[in-house]
């Protein structure tokens, strides 16, 4: 088990291989469907003009994400009325929905790690090699347990996206993940899918 402090260096990222269990420490930010679409449309493809606090938020999150980690998570948060935010439940959401966006976001912001569940596809795997970056798998549904590793909520951006879709800046201690896609082209998801496909063909051939 390796304990890593964020931000992550390129050397650290390159040293991680599929199957490595890791405990993450430091500051990370959540971002899921609305955040990824917003980042890509507004700042990467620029198909949409910045509005409201967009530019301000962009400048604020850039240094947080550069060398950092994005967590695909829509948490349950208490203290919404008092702004004394606390993560109550915070497991990963399914990552594959960000497949159209993730590689672009990794490159644009120099992201070193993405945490989620279920794995991602070929575009993200290619970007992991180029940036370099790793995909880190958390246990889906283990929300109360993971929330305990979130020691502080430092702030929130884009709360108008709604609580699950907002970008929450957190400090974590020993946040548990496993590398399932590395920066050398390795992907546990590719091998599990290939094996299950062969088994499916065998089963379909039976009456």
């Amino acid at each position, binding site marked *: 088990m390796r304990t890593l402090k964020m931000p992550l260096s390129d050397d650290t990222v390159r040293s991680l291989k599929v199957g490595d269990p890791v405990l993450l420490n430091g500051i990370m930010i959540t971002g899921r469907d609305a955040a990824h679409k917003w980042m890509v449309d507004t700042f990467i493809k620029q198909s949409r003009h910045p509005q409201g606090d967009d530019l301000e938020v962009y400048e604020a999150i850039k240094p947080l994400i550069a060398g950092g980690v994005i967590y695909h998570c829509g948490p349950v948060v208490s203290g919404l009325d008092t702004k004394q935010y606390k993560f109550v439940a915070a*497991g990963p*959401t399914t990552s594959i929905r960000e497949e159209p966006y993730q590689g672009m976001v990794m490159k644009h912001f120099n992201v070193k790690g993405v945490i989620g569940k*279920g794995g991602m596809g070929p575009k993200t795997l290619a970007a992991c090699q180029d940036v370099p970056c790793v995909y880190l798998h958390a*246990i889906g*549904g*283990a929300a109360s*347990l993971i929330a305990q590793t979130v020691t502080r909520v430092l702030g929130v951006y884009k709360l108008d*996206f709604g609580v699950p879709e907002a970008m929450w800046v957190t400090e974590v201690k020993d946040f548990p993940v496993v590398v399932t896609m590395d920066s050398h082209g390795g992907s546990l998801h590719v091998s599990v899918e290939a094996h299950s*496909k062969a088994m499916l063909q065998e089963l379909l051939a039976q*009456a």
Partner: protein
Amino acid sequence: MHDITENILELVRLTSTDLPPDVEASIHQATEREEPGSAARGALETILKNVELSRKNSTPICQDTGTPIFYVYYPAGWSTRLLRQQIEAAVVQATQKAYLRPNSVDSITGKNSGNNLGGKHFPSIHFEEVDGDSLTIELMLKGGGCENVGAQYSLPNDALNAGRDLAGVRKVVLDAVYQAQGQGCAPGILGVAIGGDRGSSYYASKETLYRKLGDTNPEPQLDTLEKRLVEEGNQLGIGPMGFGGKTTLLGTKITHLNRLPASFFVSVSYMCWAYRRRKMTITADLVRYE
């Protein structure tokens, strides 16, 4: 008719923060089957630890508290209009208490209502009048990750060589499990409906998920198919979280509806391991949760 908002709130709390005993026992058994030290076993051990912690602290097992799906079986004389109001009030309170995540989003504006209400269909409530004098409310919290990997097939399906019979049903269900990989938070539980129209078929596939894991399908050929699908689904080797392993499915439940001569739908609702479903029965002043 008295106000049962408090009781419904307790039903929501219990559903979100504790796993039904049959599901937890099934995950325990699955853990024992996986190789010591494997990623699959590690995932299941983490899942069990999380359930214990959630129960102790009354916090949601999963942050995706899903679509609240209520089935209300009411005796004559109860007002479904008042019951709906009380369910909605309980859902709002449960959101304030952080038993539920605000999960109801306007599909056009993208705005989250913040309180889990929104239109006629959120939360999802089904009413049915029944004999006797007991009111029963069943609740399932079905997360988005597993809902997204649900699938509906129209038979015959040439690509899978699946015809309009139970052998064809078996093939498309196995394909659905393969397509889902680990993305529905495996190990999963399948609700399968054969027949109906596209809408009724999906509803029935969810209704069948209210059955207990260890029960027996009253129709022997469906019972056989349920058991075979669990065994063969597990042979796919997708495993907990899609990490690879022996446990891809914890159960399969099959039901059937009459269909049009032209249509033969097979609908598969995939439920994640966080199989949050509970039942509350009210008879006179006695309230029972199970």
